[in-house]
């Protein structure tokens, strides 16, 4: 194997890895505030991309994406208010089961609003055939967009959670909801806000990956499974860890693919997930003593 081929495998790994990473970020926000894994996260991506595709017929691309993000954000908030908030004595498990139900509901609703056909947004720069050459290997410019957008989202989220009042309030809810409430934080709205934020980020992610992965109403679940794996490997609630874990998993899959039959690469993803859950349940990039402090 020569250098350009090795680089090409690396770039292939980064391509899938970046898609995993950007999907995983959305899981972390809801988890960070509520301790719930939102299994409808994949559907938020598809709703966002589908809305953007529809809007892009009447508006320029950036406006269409902005519109789609706003619409999905509102949808995320509504879903929380209608389906999550009224649940009394909500155990985490029960809420997770509700999100699974929601994912099915949203999927079927999408089938009726749009249809079963595969669509995609246009490439942000260039066309489906344009490539960027790095060390004799090639990568689609859209992947650079995916990486760039992931980085911007992660930085923005970190700043938001560390330095803004609302962000800190959301973290406080996650640490100890009762104590947060005693401090005068409206914990209910913080949960709603976390759903809105994660729906909005999901929609943005869906739009950015749409030219590469294409968009079909039932693609949310497979994306969510990989995103979920990555979120666990990176340490739940840790956005920076999610991106690192996404790229790690992508590169690992590329490595497996280069040496064995392609069919084995999903085995690797699952084995990594199992190993992490058994030996390092707090994730590769989160210190275990930090995660032990969490009370949710």
């Amino acid at each position, binding site marked *: 194997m020569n250098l350009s*081929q090795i680089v090409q495998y690396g770039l292939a790994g980064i391509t899938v890895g970046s898609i995993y990473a950007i999907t995983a970020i959305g899981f972390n926000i809801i988890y960070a505030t509520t301790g719930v894994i939102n299994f409808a996260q994949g559907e938020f991506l598809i709703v966002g991309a589908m809305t953007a595709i529809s809007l892009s017929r009447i508006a320029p691309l950036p406006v269409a994406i902005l519109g789609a993000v706003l619409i999905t954000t509102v949808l995320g908030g509504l879903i929380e208010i209608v389906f999550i908030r009224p649940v009394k004595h909500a155990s985490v498990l029960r809420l997770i089961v509700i999100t699974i139900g929601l994912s099915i509901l949203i999927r079927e609703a999408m089938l009726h609003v749009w249809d079963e056909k*595969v669509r995609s947004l246009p490439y942000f720069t260039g066309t489906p055939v344009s*490539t960027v050459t790095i060390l004799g290997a*090639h990568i*689609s410019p859209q992947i650079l967009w995916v990486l760039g957008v992931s980085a911007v989202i992660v930085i923005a989220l970190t700043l938001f959670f560390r330095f803004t009042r609302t962000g800190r309030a959301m973290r406080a809810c996650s640490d100890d909801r009762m104590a947060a409430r005693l401090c005068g934080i409206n914990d209910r709205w913080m949960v709603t806000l976390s759903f809105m934020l994660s729906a909005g980020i999901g929609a943005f992610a869906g739009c950015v990956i749409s030219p590469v992965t294409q968009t079909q109403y039932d693609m949310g679940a497979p994306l969510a499974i990989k995103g979920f794996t990555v979120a666990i490997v990176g340490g739940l609630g840790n956005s920076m860890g999610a991106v690192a874990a996404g790229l790690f998993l992508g590169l690992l899959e590329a490595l497996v693919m280069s040496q064995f039959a392609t069919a084995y690469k999903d085995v690797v993803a699952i084995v990594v997930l199992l190993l992490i859950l058994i030996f390092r349940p707090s994730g590769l990039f989160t210190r275990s003593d930090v995660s032990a402090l969490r009370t949710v």
Partner: protein
Amino acid sequence: MRTRIAAILVVGVVALGLVMSPGCKKSPEGTAPETTAAAAEPIKVGAILAVTGPASFLGAPEAKTLEMLVEQMNQAGGASGHKIELLIKDSGAKPENAISMAKQLIDEEKVLAIIGPSTSGETMAIKNICEEGKTILLSCAAAEAIVNPVANHVFKTPQKDSDAARRIFEVMKDAGITKIGVITSNAGFGIAGGQQLQKLAPDYGVTIAISETYDKQETDLTGVLTKLKGAEVEAVVNWSIVPAQSLVAKNMRQIALDVPLFQSHGFGNIKYVEAGGEAANGTIFPCGRLLVADVLPDGHPQKQVLVKYKSDYESRYNEDASTFGGHAYDALLILAEAIKKAGSVETAQVRDAIESLQGVVGTGGIFNFSAQDHNGLDKEAFEVLTVVDGKFAVYEP
């Protein structure tokens, strides 16, 4: 209080049911002699189609086509005077659904024939059920195993995947391509296609240097294509259904794997070309003639059928006709022709009549059935097509 109301309701419903049921049963018995005198009794035809789910690109146009064609046939007096009553079941492409639906159609509805299922996996799951239930099955799925070995009551309308592979290899032979890479999805269609390619390649002097399988819901194929690039293949054959067919075209260009791309007959929908954008140009694939109906010479035997189906479908549903809808069209057409030929609606006679049908012009080709051939099409049913500037065109080397 509540339970009492519930009890009263239950009693009420049961009582109502008792009153109604004899009345319901009576009416058809009472009117039956009259209707047979006026018009022949209607025939029930079931259809198990993947209208939603991952194979909805097959099932949805098939269901729409059947609804349209049944309406047209019934307006024209039905099949030999028998009105057709169509029962469409949506399997969501799940074999377990197809099984229970087939049992229901056979045991409860007592249909004459079942059209579908849309996918090969589902068809294989109900092949024996239809055979044992002595119900004619006209499958709209591609795999060769459906009619090989032949089961008495099982037929299929799409062209054989072995013939698709033959047409692909013919093009390669003419172009002097000898070393290829094959990638297939892990769904029934991809696996069956991959086996045919492996089997037939030596006949045309082609070596398959590398053969890889990927998950049918894969969202990116650059990794596996990198492997093909490393093997220095002279052409890539991809055998899958959506969404991989558009992805493979894009991903090849993105990693600068500049060799010809061949796809299966599953590529026959302009939507996949649109999804692939510029990257889809130059893709070579065998396909039924529906997609190039407008440019066929006027004397071509299929021209009239194709143009009529295409314009009827497109004006009614306001979307492009695909070859898949055509498979359902052919299935119902064959059934109607067989009823006409048999002059009967008894399963045994209709079945025999299908086996003796010759020269039936359908959308997929010209059908010549026999006791050994329950598909009735040969490789001439395929035209080799390519994509030029985002549109289908007949391939010219």
